[in-house]
């Protein structure tokens, strides 16, 4: 079992002929991802890393039956490309680009809602089902199969924590980045629900950060979960009103503070690690 993607997922890479698209297609193929086709408007007919390239998503889907997509498309073109994938029935649609305009993100999410598609991101490293497949840009070497589901807002902080889990002998089912922007498709709650249902996931790690109320909403759902949840929240030391890199990471008008998130999570029965390296021991203890 796995969550959202597995070794059978047939992946389309949009924007495959650019530097990023080409590089990460190679890395995904190395990981074992079934990349069946790519798109790049105006460049149909060529091959990238042995993967056939088409002008449109419809053409690629007709020929190869892709069922999920990952976008290496520059931010200004994300709305069009993501909607093209959603319209063709692909899901999940992984949007790696950062700096996607907020209004575009809202429109993509609205269209995905209407069509029943899952959008991961924008501004995400993507998703990896350990040992099976990955859609996105995370390094290949940090994931190892095991019982822990991981959902995070941030990339490198997830790698840090996943690596410490792996070193402690705690492998992962699926690891997903929901993205650092204010408006993203897949939310913490959506992913927690999937982990709760997945028979192979025995514990969940949630890596959040200051800003917004996504962690507080997650806490509401954690109250009903049967599986243990260990959380870590970054940004304790961030001053209010200053945006710390991620568009979402800002304490505005008192909302989204570290303290409010930790309180909500603890009250919901989650264990909250004070420091990144405390996550693995807490997970080990929760699994017994």
């Amino acid at each position, binding site marked *: 079992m796995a969550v959202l993607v597995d070794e059978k997922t047939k992946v389309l890479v949009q924007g495959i002929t650019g530097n990023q698209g080409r590089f990460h297609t190679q890395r995904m193929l190395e990981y074992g991802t079934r990349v069946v086709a790519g798109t790049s408007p105006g460049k149909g007919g060529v091959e990238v890393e042995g993967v056939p390239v088409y002008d449109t998503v419809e053409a690629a889907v007709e020929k190869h039956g892709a069922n999920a997509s990952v976008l290496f498309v520059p*931010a*200004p073109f994300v709305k069009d490309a993501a909607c093209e994938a959603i319209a063709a029935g692909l899901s999940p649609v992984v949007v790696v680009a950062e*700096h*996607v*305009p*907020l*209004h*575009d993100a*809202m*429109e993509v*999410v*609205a*269209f995905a809602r209407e069509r029943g598609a899952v959008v991961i991101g924008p501004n995400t490293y993507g998703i990896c089902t350990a040992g099976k497949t990955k859609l996105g*840009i*995370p*390094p290949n*070497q*940090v994931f190892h199969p095991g019982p822990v589901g991981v959902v*995070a*807002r*941030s*990339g*490198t*902080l*997830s*790698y*840090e924590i996943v*690596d410490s889990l792996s070193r402690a002998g705690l492998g992962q089912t699926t690891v997903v980045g929901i993205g*650092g922007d*204010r*408006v*993203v*498709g897949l939310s913490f709650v959506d992913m927690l629900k999937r982990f709760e249902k997945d028979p192979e996931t025995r514990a969940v790690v949630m890596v959040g*950060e*200051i800003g*917004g*109320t*996504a962690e507080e*909403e997650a806490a509401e759902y954690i109250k009903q979960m049967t599986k243990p949840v260990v959380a*870590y929240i*970054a*940004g*304790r*030391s*961030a*001053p209010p009103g*200053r*945006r*710390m*890199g*991620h*568009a*979402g*990471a800002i304490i505005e*008008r*008192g909302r989204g503070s570290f303290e409010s998130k930790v309180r909500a999570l603890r009250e919901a029965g989650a264990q909250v690690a*004070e*420091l*990144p*390296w405390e996550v693995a021991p807490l997970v080990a203890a929760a699994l017994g």
Partner: protein
Amino acid sequence: MKLYEYMAKAVLREAGLPVPPGRLCRTPAEAEAACRELGPVAVKAQVLVGGRGKAGGIRLADDPAAAREAAAAILGMDLKGYTVEQVYCESRLSIEKELYVGIAVDAQGKRPVVITSASGGMDIEDVPEKAIVRMPVALPWGLMGFQARELARRVGLAGELASQYAGVVEKLWQVFRAKDAELVEVNPLAVVEGRLVCADARLNVDDDALFRHPELPRVSEATELESRVRELGLAFVQLDGDIAVMANGAGITMGTLDVIQHFGGRPMNFLDAGGGSAAGPTAKALEILVQTRPKAILINIFGGITRCDEVAKAIVEVKRRVGIPMPLVVRLVGTNEEAGRAMLEAEGVQAFRTMEEAARRVVELAGEGRGA
């Protein structure tokens, strides 16, 4: 990007919203002239922080001499850390009633939301929850006329004022969408002689959409140092401690600051060198950090796409070319870790394997630096 009040009002005026006449002034003499032209005015500090009224940033003037005096008092004044460089002289309003109306992005609902209240004039955060009306707006359809009329009813308006109010909300919606706004806010939306007037206005535009808004002015809140680092394409925020920090990725950079604080240290900045950062920009950023004269520097790299040897190359380059006079602590793991580590050790720089050891060490060294 936050716009100054006078800029936000220019956008609103262009969209057909009722905005009082005003003049931007940089000197007391200009304020005097503006008052001669407009009659009695409010002289308002142009700053990007709220609460300027309470802080003495707004003064009323009945005649040109008083306007000159008011501007002289406000110009150059320090408002919550910002020096006032411009005032906006605006026709005085005799306000009968104050409402609030704003359109923002509801991150939870993943769509825009209109927020309005019959209790305007104060910070919306201070308005009791039961006096606030919220209406989500579905995309791509956008705000419809009936929603604007319903909002008018919910804030207790009827007749001519209700229809004016609905028109204001619809036009604000057009501004919100057309300008890629994160927030458009009119507070207060004032009733003046039976007519609605936008007495104050805020417009925050999405930075990531500025490329399609050449028509908008550009406003930067960054310090000179922040601008220099951001020009390298890196995310940078100045803080008030004495340990300089560079890491790769926003989350891990935030985590690094937290860990430094946990061990009793005080971070001096947030610097996200990004994933896949090459030696060139990394070296330039490090050089700028050295120039800020921290007590110690911590570089925390978990290399996925970022290659450890590239980071090591950057460090060695800066060390040889300009020197790094303060203690430098490096944590380096991930892709090409051994190569990176060997390069650093050849230069006498120790590289730690864990974030814990590295953070502990940099706090110790900064403490020694302060003691010296």
